[in-house]
């Protein structure tokens, strides 16, 4: 299919997302939320909280997007492309399932990156500390946050797309959202019970849980604790990367082109 663009599925998916317009509302909402949410705090009593509250709001919005709009779009995209026979058409033309998977996921990774971009913009331009040394540490922390967030988002969206091609849209939406919920909050709640247990079964369950709480650096931003040291950052990144690889392999196994 030489006359067909090599990234035609990505372009088609992207055109479909943009034609539905909600993506622009997502980005507009990111800016508005970071601007308006801090106004709900008692900032008049203590104006110093205004700047970290704005940074916190920007990242809360990014996590909210990863709970809602992003997995919904992933599941809908996978389901729509399979139902319409586009995946089968391209498969017959020689596009392998992993290439399709990559192109569809890339169409969503761009929007996850855009949400991270808005959060970075808010943190680096509007809430950057005035003192130079503090600002440098703040910038490193924000970049670390962006990288870890993306390591969580990318495989979850890939899984959402793959599940969308296999099962009902609602399941394809709920699975990545549920994994994110358990990884962000469940793992923290269960840490004393499972992580500290001497029983091998409990420890294994603890290890098997998604550990997305490692990517949540909001408290470090709010309390200006500075960036993670490089060994902590790389070990967190490695854990999230390995989890991401496992989810991606699972997603690829579930991916289906047949309409």
């Amino acid at each position, binding site marked *: 299919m*030489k006359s067909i663009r090599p990234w035609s599925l990505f372009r088609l998916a992207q055109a479909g997302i943009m034609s539905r317009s909600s993506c622009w509302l997502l980005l507009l909402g990111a800016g508005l939320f970071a601007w308006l949410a801090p106004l709900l705090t008692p900032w008049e009593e203590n104006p110093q909280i205004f700047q970290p509250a704005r940074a916190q709001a920007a990242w809360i919005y990014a996590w909210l997007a990863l709970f809602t709009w992003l997995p919904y779009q992933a599941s809908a995209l996978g389901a729509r492309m399979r139902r319409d026979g586009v995946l089968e058409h391209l498969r017959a*033309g020689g596009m392998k399932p992993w290439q399709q998977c990559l192109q569809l996921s890339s169409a969503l990774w761009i929007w996850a990156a855009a949400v991270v971009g808005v959060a970075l913009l808010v943190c680096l331009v509007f809430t950057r500390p005035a003192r130079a040394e503090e600002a440098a540490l703040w910038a490193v922390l924000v970049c670390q946050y962006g990288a870890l967030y993306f390591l969580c988002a990318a495989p979850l969206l890939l899984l959402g797309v793959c599940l969308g091609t296999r099962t009902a849209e609602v399941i394809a939406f709920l699975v990545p959202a549920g994994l994110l919920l358990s990884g962000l909050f469940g793992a923290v709640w269960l840490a004393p019970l499972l992580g500290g247990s001497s029983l091998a079964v409990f420890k294994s369950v603890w290890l098997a849980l998604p550990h997305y709480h490692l990517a949540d650096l909001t408290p470090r931003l709010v309390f200006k604790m500075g960036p993670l040291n490089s060994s902590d950052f790389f070990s967190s990144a490695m854990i999230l990367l390995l989890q991401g690889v496992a989810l991606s392999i699972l997603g690829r196994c579930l991916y289906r082109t047949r309409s």
Partner: protein
Amino acid sequence: MSASAILHLEKGTCFGYRSGPPWKRQDRRLVEVGAPVKLGPGLHLLVAPNGTGKTTLLKTLAGLNTPLEGKLVLPAAVHYFADELKADPELTAGSFFRAFFKKGSLVRAEKLAADLRLDLRKQIGKLSRGNRQKVLLILAEIGAGAGEGSFLLMDEPLTGLDAETRAQVTALWAGAGAGITRLVVMHELESVAQASSLLTIARGQLKHAAEKTGATWMDTYQALQA
């Protein structure tokens, strides 16, 4: 034709699907090749009653299923247009083509759209059924048109088109793309005057007529089914 044939089907090649749970898979044979079939560039019609295995045959030729018996080698770029293939209704036809085609191909797609009187600025979901079908026909023609040795498989592509557009499309098939092999499933035999051959499925056997055996392809079809 046989010298440049793209598709060779050996006698005994079987098409169908496997059904049942993984531990108890059963072959469901639908079509068997009765005599060797060779298809080269040109328009080949596949006409058969409903439920005889036309779509299964097409899917297998497209590489989406494997034959139950025999081997299938296709030294061609395959373009498969399933009956259920749809373009995203939220897109305009223009943005749909821009997603698929590079510059030169895009210009050809726009010209063909103008010839077929298709509005590229209108959302696909707001087009009539016939016009939505035109979008896919243009995708098929331009996608296959650039490559020599393309094998175009289409499942009922004329459904929903008016008589005038049918005539335009069949004229296009007859005239354009000398290197393209088209295998088209259809029921509207009366709208095709020029075709290279006709295939049909009669009592589970794939039958091929390289030439008309009567005045029309309908006569040929009826002769093969008899």
